[in-house]
């Protein structure tokens, strides 16, 4: 399955030499969204080679960038197709494109128009000006929900072997029932970190993703304790569960920072520097407690 559209200049409707030129990535979904939004209008669409990556990620990598834009303008002969020298770019492309360098190298003026392709018609109707709402990022509940399935699939690759290992080790020492319970508890903590943390993001306390995840994990562990016969777990297992499960959830909610549109590199670095040693300590502590419990009993 390919998600790429051949880069180059496309016509939507029957554009003439004065029609606006909209620039997008060659990720099929980006291309389709722009084309659908502009359906029924006469617009030129300049598609850059971003190797099937969306505008935001490609701008971060530099493929949706000054060099590719200038190259694509030349290669498509855009200066002979249109009489004006104006390009309309998505705001999220600005992290890769330097407008004044594009102007120097190609003669074209870059305008960063809107955050979402769906606002392009309104932008054009307003004569090329955007409202504050068109320039604003949103990250609502549904935006986060659609990310979770793919995050779960990505997490499964390292998580399933880890769950198998937990099952085997626990089974050797404590027997089948405990092994199934430990592996299931671990998988639940992963799901809490991957799905519940991000969904409840604005409701969980503090600004730190690691702390939000730890909170979600602690809630999950408390629910497990209440509903899965926690009183019969014994002291060591209970303590270990309340240490290890929030640490696992915390790690996976921290990983969600890559999916958001408001976390900074410096912020995530700080969280990792402070958070990862605490998570490792909690896991190590939990392991020590169950082992010590086993040896002492």
């Amino acid at each position, binding site marked *: 399955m390919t998600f790429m559209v051949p880069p180059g200049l496309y016509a939507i409707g029957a554009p003439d030499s004065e029609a606006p030129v909209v620039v997008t990535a060659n990720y099929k979904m980006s291309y389709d969204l722009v084309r659908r939004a502009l359906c029924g209008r006469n617009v030129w669409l300049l598609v850059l080679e971003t190797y099937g*990556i969306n505008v935001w*990620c490609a*701008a*971060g*990598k530099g493929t949706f960038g000054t060099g590719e834009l200038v190259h694509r303008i030349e290669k498509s002969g855009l200066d002979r197709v249109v009489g004006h020298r104006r390009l309309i770019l998505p*705001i*999220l492309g*600005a*992290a*890769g*494109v*330097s*407008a*004044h360098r594009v102007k120097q190298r190609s003669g074209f003026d870059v*305008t*960063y128009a809107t*955050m979402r392709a769906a606002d392009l018609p309104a932008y054009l109707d307003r004569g090329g000006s955007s409202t*504050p709402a068109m*320039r*604003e*990022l*949103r*990250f609502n509940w549904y935006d986060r929900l659609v990310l979770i399935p793919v995050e779960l699939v*990505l997490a499964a*690759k*390292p998580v399933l072997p880890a769950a198998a290992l937990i099952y085997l080790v626990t089974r050797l020492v404590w027997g089948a029932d405990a092994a199934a319970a430990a592996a299931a508890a671990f998988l639940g903590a992963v799901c809490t970190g991957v799905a519940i943390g991000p969904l409840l*993001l*604005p409701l969980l306390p503090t*600004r*730190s*993703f690691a702390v939000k995840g730890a909170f979600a994990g602690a809630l999950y562990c408390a629910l497990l304790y209440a509903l899965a016969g926690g009183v019969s777990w014994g002291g060591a297992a209970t303590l270990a569960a309340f240490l290890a499960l929030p640490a696992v959830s915390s790690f996976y909610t*921290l*990983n969600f*920072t*890559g*999916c*958001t*549109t*408001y*976390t*900074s*590199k*410096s*912020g*995530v*670095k*700080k*969280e*990792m520097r402070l958070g990862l040693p605490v998570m490792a300590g909690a896991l190590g502590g939990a392991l020590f407690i169950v082992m010590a419990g086993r040896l002492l009993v």
Partner: protein
Amino acid sequence: MKGFRYLQGVATLELSTPLCIGCGRCVEVCPHQVFRMEGKRAVMVDRDACMECGACALNCPAAALKVDAGVGCASGMIHEWLRERKIPGFGGGGCCG
């Protein structure tokens, strides 16, 4: 961004006001409305909202803006860290390929 705030006091964004030529490009490209024009100069009104995407610095024709740009992605950083130390396993994943 409404309803979401990330850690305070960590952003590396710096604006050198004497260099600003007042073109307004930073206001245009910033996805988090960090800047505002006051008279003929840009000012930072919400530095903590900066996600360090680097769009403002890249598009400032006067080079008045500096930021240590990058992606705030924990799994990306872990992969990078493992790659730098040539530790195998885990690699190959990552959200943006």
